[in-house]
Structures are given as C-alpha cells and as structure tokens.
C-alpha cells in the first residue's frame, strides 16, 4: 500500500475514534469497545471498497453493507456522516431523547442503514436474502455483512452460513469481528468457535484470516472479491476490543460502561483530542 494512502487511512481511523468518544461520552452510552474494534474495517470498506453514493442511498445497484453487530453503530454513524449520507450535526443527537440515532442499528429512515440488527443472528440471513435477490435480478451489487464472534453462537447464523454456501452466493462477503469477547466472557471459555476457519470452509465458504486493524492486510484481502468464484467469502478479522485506547483495549467491561474521567483523559491524550 502506498505510504500516503496508508497515512490518510490511519488519520481517518483516529478521527473516527475521536468522534465516537465524543458521542459515547455525551450520551453516557455503552459499547465503545465494540465500536473501536471495527474502525479500520469500516473506514477501509467505506473509503475504498463499497460501491455506494451518498446522494443515492437507495440506488438499486448499490453495494449493501449490513452491520449485523448493530451495537457497534457509533462507528457506522460516524463514517456515514463523514461520507455525507446525512448531516454531521445529527451525530450530536446520538442516544438523546427523541433522536433517530438509536444505539443499535435500526432501519428507521437514516440513510445508509440497510437493516435493523443487534438482535443476534439476523444480519447474515438478511444479507443472504439480498445476495439471492441480486443473483435473481442479475444485478452485480455485492452484499457485505459484518458480524460479531458472539453472534456465531446463534443457530440462525449457522442456518444462513449453510444456505449461503449451498446457493453459491459469491456476491456475499462476511467479516467476523473476532475480538474474542462475548457478552459474559471469553469466546473460548463461553462457547468455543475454533477451529473457526475450518467450520466456514466445511460449509462451502472461501475463508481468509487477517489482522482487522492492519490497513495493509485489509486492503489486500478486499482487492480481489470474491475470494473464489461460486463461493461466499468470509474474512475472519482478528481484532482487539476497544482498540486504539490502551485502557479500553481487550477488557470486556467497556462493552457496557461509559468511560469515566480517568479513561477519558487517557483516551483524549492517546487519540490527540
């Protein structure tokens, strides 16, 4: 990757984290760590990969992006606002009384939000339906779905994985935010997903693993889609929950808690706010 492009992406990721921090503090909201683990992935997708036009958010030929882990929505709102899907000042209403900027991805008229998610195990199957529709309508748009690792406990997720493989949906690209934390503990302790890659491959998917915070690896992986003709693509993105601020990293409490003065001070200093 060219140096100045990499620099720009990194700067963008830092800016996104700053905005998220402000939104979370102002709303006294949860899920900062869930939002931070997907920043690089979403920045890259929206900068470089997705064929979308903020002025035509309902273009039938647009690529679809579904944030199945809907609780990471502050990242998506921030990026959509930066891309011009809606006015940036709307971000100030995040989780405030009467706002449509709900704390879980909700398809309530906000441009760019394709599905209501956050109830686990929905997003991938909705994406399967959209990918099937593209095939039937002979349209060349692609469907990207970002799911959490915890979501892979859900039976409905595996139903959809089975279906996508069976229907050879090579216009479907799924990214797992594999930060290895789920609601009440480590994924490996609660309900182990390993051997994770082999599971997807056994369901007829083409799988690749990356560091979900490395723009070099992200760019490489999305440079050629699908990974294999006739198969859906799965990216197992190894991530760190709370990535970007030392005191928030890899600690599950920041799934729930709002940073206090102590963490805010450190976060501001580390993010340059």
């Amino acid at each position: 990757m060219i140096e100045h492009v990499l620099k720009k992406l990194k700067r963008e990721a830092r800016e996104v984290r700053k905005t998220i921090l402000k939104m979370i503090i102002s709303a006294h909201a949860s899920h900062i760590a869930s939002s931070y683990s997907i920043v690089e992935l979403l920045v890259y997708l929206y900068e470089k990969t997705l064929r979308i036009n903020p002025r035509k958010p309902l273009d039938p030929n647009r690529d679809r992006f579904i944030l199945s882990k809907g609780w990471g929505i502050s990242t998506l709102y921030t990026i959509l606002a930066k891309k011009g899907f809606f006015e940036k000042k709307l971000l100030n209403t995040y989780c405030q009384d009467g706002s449509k900027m709900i704390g879980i991805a909700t398809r309530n008229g906000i441009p760019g939000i394709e599905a209501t998610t956050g109830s686990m195990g929905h997003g991938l199957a909705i994406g399967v339906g959209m990918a099937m529709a593209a095939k039937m309508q002979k349209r060349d748009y692609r469907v990207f779905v970002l799911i959490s690792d915890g979501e892979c406990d859900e039976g409905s997720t595996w139903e959809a994985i089975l279906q996508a493989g069976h229907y050879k949906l090579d216009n479907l690209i799924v990214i797992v935010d594999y930060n290895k934390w789920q609601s009440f503990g480590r994924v490996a302790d609660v309900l182990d997903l390993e051997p994770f890659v082999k599971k997807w491959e056994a369901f007829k998917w083409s799988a690749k693993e990356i560091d979900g915070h490395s723009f070099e690896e992200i760019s490489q992986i999305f440079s050629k889609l699908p990974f294999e003709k006739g198969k859906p693509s799965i990216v197992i993105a190894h991530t760190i929950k709370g990535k970007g601020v030392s005191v928030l990293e890899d600690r599950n409490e920041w799934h729930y808690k709002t940073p206090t003065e102590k963490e805010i001070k450190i976060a501001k200093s580390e993010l340059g706010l």
Partner: protein
Amino acid sequence: MRTAFLNTLVDLMRVNEDILSLTADMGFSVFEDVEKEFPERFLNTGVTEQSTISIATGLALCGYKVFFYAQAPFATMRCFEQIRLDVAYNHVNVKIIGTASGFSSNQLGVSHFALEDVGLMRLLPDMTIFTPGDPLESAWATKAAYEINGPVYIRITKAGSPVIHKTQQLSHPEAGIIIKNGGRFTLFVSGSLLPMALDIIEVLSKKNVDGTLISLPVIKPINKKIILEAARKTGYIFTLEEHNIIGGLGSAVAEIIAESGMQVKFYRFGAPDKFTSVTGSVQYLLEYNGLSTQQISETILKSLRGIK
C-alpha cells in the same frame, strides 16, 4: 382451503413476476407443481424457519413479494423474533402462510398444534391477519395478501374444507360476511370452524332460536363497526375459533365490546387455556376441548335462557 390458497398463488405467480415462494422444507405433495412451473421463483431453503424469515426480508427489501409457507407452529412461533424485528418492523412484503393450523395435525400432538399463532401475530404492529374459513375466503385472502403493501399472516388448515359461501364473489369480506340473519344472538366465527358455526346456527334455528352468523376472515385490522352493530342489534355476542381463547378472535372482539361501554352478554368458544396431551381425530380433539356443535349449542341456549 389449502388447495384454494395454492391455486390462487399459482395464478398470481403467472401474472406477477415479483412473487417468490419460499418454504422451509415443507409442502410435500403441495408445492411440487409450483416448483415445476416456477423453478426460478420457488425456493426450498431447508429446515430453517428463523433464517428463512430473515432471507425473505432481504429479498423483500430488494423488491420481491415473498410468500413463506410452513406449518403454522413453525411459521410463527419458531421464528417469532425474526418476524417481529425483520418482517414487521421493516414493514416488508413478506406473506406468511401458516398451514395445518389449530388441531389439523391431529395425530401429532402439541408440537404440531397451532393454537397460539393468531395471538402472537396480533401483537405485531401493522400485521394483517387473515383466518379464512372456507376455500373461497382462502382464495380471496391470498389475493388480498398480494395487494397489501406490508406483512401479512394467513392462517389456513389442510386441504378438504367444504365451501360454505354460496357466491363465488365475496362482497367485501374484509368487513365481515353475514351468512345468516337472526335476532336472538350473534355468533362471530373466524377460520376453520366456519362449518361448525353454520351447524350451530341451524341446530338452534330448528329450536326457534334464530341467530346471526358472521364470518370474520380478517382478525387484524378487525372491523369494529360490524361487531358493535351486532352487539346493538342482538345484545348477545359469541365467538368461535380453533385457537386458544386468549389472543385470537375472542380477545379481539372482547376488547372492542369492553371499550364500547355497551351492555352486552359475551362468551368465547375456543380451545381452553391448557395443552392438549392426547391424540385422536380433529373432531375428537375439538370435542375434547368443548368444541362441538352440540356442546356449543347447549351453552348458547343456556346462556340465552339464563338471561331471561
């Protein structure tokens, strides 16, 4: 009833290319012709009610009108949360067909009985609910489901229900269909027990107790007007359905009457609020639950006399 649904669906699919038929591996000896005629627009997605409802939503969000067919307990209860969040919240064109409702799968027990489905569907905002009572109502409901912009639940039974209505062209069935007029009481019926309701009316008529019989093939949105008019005219309202007495037609009618402030005598006939842990013919199971022409006629008579 099921055949009427299927024939109507095939007719609709011939004309409207935006219809897809989805089934979660159900429809043996039902959907073969659909699959043959529309191989591109019929999808058997496997035994996956939950993801299939989400898939149907994805398809509908991309412009399709999706008819999803499964046995009523699995079409509504197994995937209720998907219906709520994906179908109902997004107000998409997913039409859920719950077949083998009530005690239709009579030999198979609780797992296959569907006595709670209407109650669940009624809880969802803007969900239209059709509970046809004969093949004509079933055909009408299928057509209406296609024309409605938004989610629909159609509750049907197996094949073999008799035709009750005398005219092929039902006049405004959404408002309720008055089948018999009589001054002593009104019996509202919705769904599979329509033939029984007619029997009850005839049995009582022979005893010089003439009642009004109204079929309500639409439970939601329910026609308030016809209920209040009947209450005003006859003062005695009974409801009959092959569903738990909680949540279905009886509840819907009760809510309207209770809020009207009218003095009305009211009684619900339906499956009592308990599980049925025996097997038998449909007729046996209905009777076991207090749902037979004789039992109901007697209760109506007693109730009318008691008030005198």
